[in-house]
């Protein structure tokens, strides 16, 4: 729409193109070329919402390349997800970027990292095709061997090939200080500010009209329909603080607990049209549309040759300006989340199993769901 050329073909061309690049890098560089084909099998009782029962099996080939010279690192990643059940869900992604990290003094390091990402879908989802440019700048300074601070600034701009309403740019400024104590306790205080700008928000929130659910593909189907005649620019800020405490028990066990609070100063009613498309939200950042708290705690430990990570979280989220589907009050969610990750490397073979249990209670019935996802991963590094 809006005169933009829609992307077609599901991005299947990207992977072979990126596979050729190692040849160029090999000719010029002297370090670290990596190729990682990977395969994941996933089963989920639900994808995003409880609108359909859904099971997915997909193959995820990936290429991961690194070229290193001195303080400069160039990296190139490409991956695909090829679903067995529905090719409409297939995606391809690629990221090309660089990182320049230099120790200015024994205590101070700077980092500059630009990257460019592409993400492409197939079939009806090509309206979510996007490209993103991001630039991160940071400085890290050790005041003492147990105390350091880090300042980070990051700008990014995401452009969607056929859905300008999802275009957005983001500026993040973040400061953190970590203190380590003899008791093996680390305390980290982090504060930051996100500023988001959507340059082309449709004035009429009904322009992203809901469509019927399609159970076979699992998509809750709220794709755009109709024509938007008026657009305007909308920007808002999101400050946040977080406090994290980590406790080591010997070298082999690590515990952590974290609290995060974020504030939305602005009413997000102008973004209601965007919020109606839950498929777009991960790309446009659901992270940046809620006000509330996140409590989390977890454990990490190598156990009998496996690496185990378990964490649980409780989120209380308010979406000021997003009214519920029945036209009622603003949407409010409470989410409970448990994740268990077990990994093991056997030579060049990496095996992993990731389990996620999620329960979302919402004042909007569209967002009430329970989800169980089990993902088996198998990767081999050449």
């Amino acid at each position, binding site marked *: 729409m809006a005169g933009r050329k829609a992307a077609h073909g599901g991005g299947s061309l990207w992977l072979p193109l990126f596979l050729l690049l190692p040849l160029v890098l090999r000719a010029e560089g002297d*370090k*670290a070329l*990596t190729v*990682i084909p990977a395969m994941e099998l996933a089963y989920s009782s639900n994808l995003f919402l409880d609108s359909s029962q859904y099971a997915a099996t997909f193959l995820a080939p*990936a*290429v*991961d390349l*690194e070229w*290193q010279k001195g*303080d400069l*690192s160039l*990296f190139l*990643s*490409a*991956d695909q997800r090829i679903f067995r059940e529905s090719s409409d869900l297939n995606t391809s*992604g*690629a*990221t090309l*970027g660089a*990182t320049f*990290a230099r*120790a200015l003094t*024994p205590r*101070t*390091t700077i*980092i500059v*990292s630009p*990257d460019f*990402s592409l993400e492409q879908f197939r079939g009806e989802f090509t309206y979510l095709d996007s490209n*993103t440019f*991001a*630039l*991160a700048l940071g400085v*890290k300074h050790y005041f003492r*061997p*147990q105390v*350091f601070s*880090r300042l*980070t600034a*990051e700008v990014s701009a995401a452009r969607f090939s056929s859905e300008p309403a999802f275009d957005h740019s983001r500026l993040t400024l973040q400061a953190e200080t970590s203190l*380590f104590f*003899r008791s*093996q306790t680390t305390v980290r205080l982090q504060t930051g500010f996100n500023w988001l700008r959507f340059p082309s928000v449709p004035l009429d929130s009904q322009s992203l009209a809901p469509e019927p659910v399609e159970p076979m593909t699992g998509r809750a189907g709220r794709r755009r329909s109709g024509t938007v005649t008026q657009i305007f620019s909308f920007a808002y800020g999101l400050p946040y603080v977080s406090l994290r405490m*980590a406790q*080591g*028990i*010997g*070298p*082999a*066990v*690590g*515990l952590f607990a974290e609290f995060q609070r974020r504030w939305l100063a602005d009413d997000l009613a102008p973004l209601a049209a965007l919020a109606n498309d839950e498929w777009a939200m991960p790309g446009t950042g659901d992270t940046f549309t809620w006000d509330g708290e996140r409590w989390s705690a977890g*454990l*990490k*430990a*190598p156990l009998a040759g496996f*690496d185990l990570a378990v964490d649980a979280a409780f989120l209380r989220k308010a979406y000021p300006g997003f009214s519920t589907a029945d036209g009622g009050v603003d949407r409010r969610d409470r989410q409970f989340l448990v994740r268990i990750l077990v990994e093991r490397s056997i*030579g*060049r073979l990496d095996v992993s199993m990731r389990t996620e249990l999620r329960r979302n209670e919402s004042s909007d019935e569209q967002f009430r769901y329970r989800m169980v996802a089990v993902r088996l991963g198998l990767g081999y*590094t050449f």
Partner: protein
Amino acid sequence: MGRMQISRAVFWGVAFLAAGMATCAADNSFHYFDPDRQVTFSGRLAAFRIEPMYAGRTPFIILTVESEERTMRVEVAPRWFFRLDLAVGMQVRVTGSGIDRPDAPAWIIARELVIQGQRYELRDAHGFPLWSRRGAGHGSEARRGGNCRGWGGGV
């Protein structure tokens, strides 16, 4: 050329050779990973720094780890590969190829490092470095969105 001149030439030749060997030894370029001499060592992180290794081409993370019995120097990995915020005093468990040197602290070329419950695999069982075949991001999804990759690594 008289005998004195020959003697001087031999002397300086040997001296330069010795100095060269000492320099090489000082930048640790003489050691290698011996899979048959692997040890596990636990202790407290006493210091960490970046040192140029392997003919000065690559900045490496080098740890000094102390236990009650001894002090070990640990060669970890290139800075770009190892991403952890280190702090002096952390409990560390290192597994790797041990090198005992009478004139210097014992040295470990780390294959695996465990800190605060997180295991970092650095080399395979034969000592082959994983950074030469695996990118720092360990997958493309980790890289999306400019997340300031490359942080950590001590300094």
